[in-house]
């Protein structure tokens, strides 16, 4: 029955097979789009705007666009978009200040990174005997590729890192440091020990209350004052930890929400099996709490991806700030919109991939696979 397509235009033909479908399609249109004069006007107005918008996108982005040229004047002459700017500038946008001749190392690094991440997200690989060696090997190779200084590779200090690889490293560092801290803070806030509770509450409330930029300022400018003379902690590391801690404070509250949803009976059943606090937490409580809060956790992880742009305050250029810098070039400056659209597409790609994955995880959970 319901497999008959019920487009309102095809309704008379479909009617013979499925009068309900025709009725419901028309009824749906009437109820949702044309239920009153005002509603109808609004529907028409929105349709007009949408059509105009798509027409513009087509006209500007495709019909009159310049897709390839090395001459900015060709772009200036055109009335459409200048996608050529991406081909022209993609390397400094994607790789920032990293030495031009060494960009191949970053391409290799990103391949290793993405491969490792994709494997780690795949349930069939969730086995420490596989994941631990995998992460050790790929971290080492990524370190060698990024820093160099061995195997005949030229040494590149962190002050010259940038672009998408920097975004990836910051993001990964944020999540890998931030998630465990978030879990500990969330547990601490509900711990039986008053000291743990106090520390967690003060930590979370104090850091959630200030803007990220303030935390980063402290991490970069104030924190070194407390170190003994001669001791130096890498700036990039400091800023990663700063972003991670900020991330952790929000994430901790999300996880706490999940913890609160666990019925008391679960703790009691675990206690009656004489499981210890940590056994109960690790095997009974956290697996359930993290599943419950997964949608909100994903939300903050995606937000963390975008917070990586704050590295600008230590003069490092992630993909967004690298693009801003690149687009200062007077020859191409006019086409900054196209360049930013490119960056947006990169963010969208990773952000959307993350949310698709999170949705898949929810399905796996619902089907009992994990």
């Amino acid at each position: 029955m319901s497999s008959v397509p019920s487009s309102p235009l095809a309704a008379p033909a479909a009617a013979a097979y499925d009068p309900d479908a025709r009725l419901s399609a028309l009824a749906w249109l009437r109820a949702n789009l044309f239920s009153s004069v005002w509603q109808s006007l609004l529907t028409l107005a929105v349709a007009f705007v949408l059509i105009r918008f798509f027409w513009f996108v087509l006209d500007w982005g495709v019909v009159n666009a310049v897709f390839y040229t090395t001459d900015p004047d060709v772009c200036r002459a055109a009335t459409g978009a200048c996608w050529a700017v991406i081909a022209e500038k993609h390397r400094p946008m994607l790789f920032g200040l990293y030495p031009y001749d060494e960009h191949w190392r970053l391409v290799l690094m990103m391949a290793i990174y993405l491969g490792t991440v994709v494997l780690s997200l795949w349930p069939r690989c969730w086995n420490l005997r596989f994941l631990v060696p995998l992460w050790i090997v790929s971290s080492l190779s990524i370190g060698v590729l990024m820093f160099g200084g061995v195997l005949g590779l030229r040494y590149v200090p962190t002050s010259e890192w940038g672009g998408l690889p920097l975004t990836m490293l910051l993001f990964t560092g944020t999540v890998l440091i931030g998630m465990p801290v978030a879990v500990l803070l969330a547990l601490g806030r509900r711990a039986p020990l008053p000291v743990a509770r106090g520390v967690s509450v003060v930590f979370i409330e104090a850091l959630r209350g200030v803007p990220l930029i303030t935390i980063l300022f402290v991490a970069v400018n104030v924190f070194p004052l407390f170190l003994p003379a001669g001791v130096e902690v890498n700036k990039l590391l400091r800023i990663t930890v700063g972003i991670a801690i900020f991330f952790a404070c929000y994430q901790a509250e999300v996880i706490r929400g999940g913890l609160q949803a666990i019925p008391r009976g679960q703790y009691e059943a675990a206690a009656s099996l004489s499981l210890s606090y940590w056994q109960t937490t690790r095997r009974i409580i956290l697996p359930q709490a993290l599943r419950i809060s997964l949608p909100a956790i994903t939300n903050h992880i995606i937000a963390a991806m975008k917070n990586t742009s704050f590295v600008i305050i230590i003069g490092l250029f992630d993909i967004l700030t690298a693009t801003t810098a690149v687009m200062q070039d007077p020859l191409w400056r006019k086409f900054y919109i196209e360049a930013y659209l490119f960056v947006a597409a990169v963010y969208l790609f990773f952000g959307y991939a993350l949310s698709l994955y999170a949705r898949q995880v929810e399905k796996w959970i619902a089907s009992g696979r994990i």
Partner: protein
Amino acid sequence: MTQSAKPGPSADPVIRMSHVSKWYGHFQVLHDVSLDVRKGERVVVCGPSGSGKSTLIRCINRLEVHQSGQIFVKGLEMTDNVKNIDTIRRHIGMVFQNFNLFPHLTVLENLTLGPMLTRQMKKSAAEDLAMHFLRKVRIPEQSGKYPLQLSGGQQQRVAIARSLCMEPEIMLFDEPTSALDPEMIKEVLDTMIELAESGMTMIVVTHEMGFARTVADNVVFMADGRKVESGPPEEFFGNPREERTRAFLDQILKH
């Protein structure tokens, strides 16, 4: 009732509660309750809702903390001492009204978790043990399912098997059939009767008076946090001494 179906309890008390009192704030839930349970004895605790039955048995494995009086399990006193609590809990299994199975684990994982974590059993040995007890409660074919895929009666039998996998000497039941549809009550009671016949020491909070009559060695009646009356079932049901007991029995046996 033959002697073999109902092996007599031995003389030494495995649980001794003496003059136990407990308060929630200013509200006293338990008033000076004393109770001895000997090895192999089956005690049924009954009484109106809110009379402190759950609180009483939950004090025995310290899901609740009593404030005065003493509780001994196998000669060990229940105090704040974490090691004692742990040792005592290892001797005691508990079955809850709402089953409290771990919903994110399969039936088999629910059963093997305790033995693997607290008794350092190898996975294969723990699984053998789990299957043994799943056969005992007659649902070995459900081992791969998740708790929420089972009926209430099946879930409660899994919960019983989960406790048995810890090989406890004492089993506490807190209204194990109260959350069940009538047609499932019998399968759980049958499982409990078999357990009783195997000589397990049991304290059962229940309103199933038929179960109390056939299985109990001692029936305890609680009201308002006090142990009002206790005695063997023949006496308790045949000739209750206290007016409150009679009123309670009249009411509950009418159905």
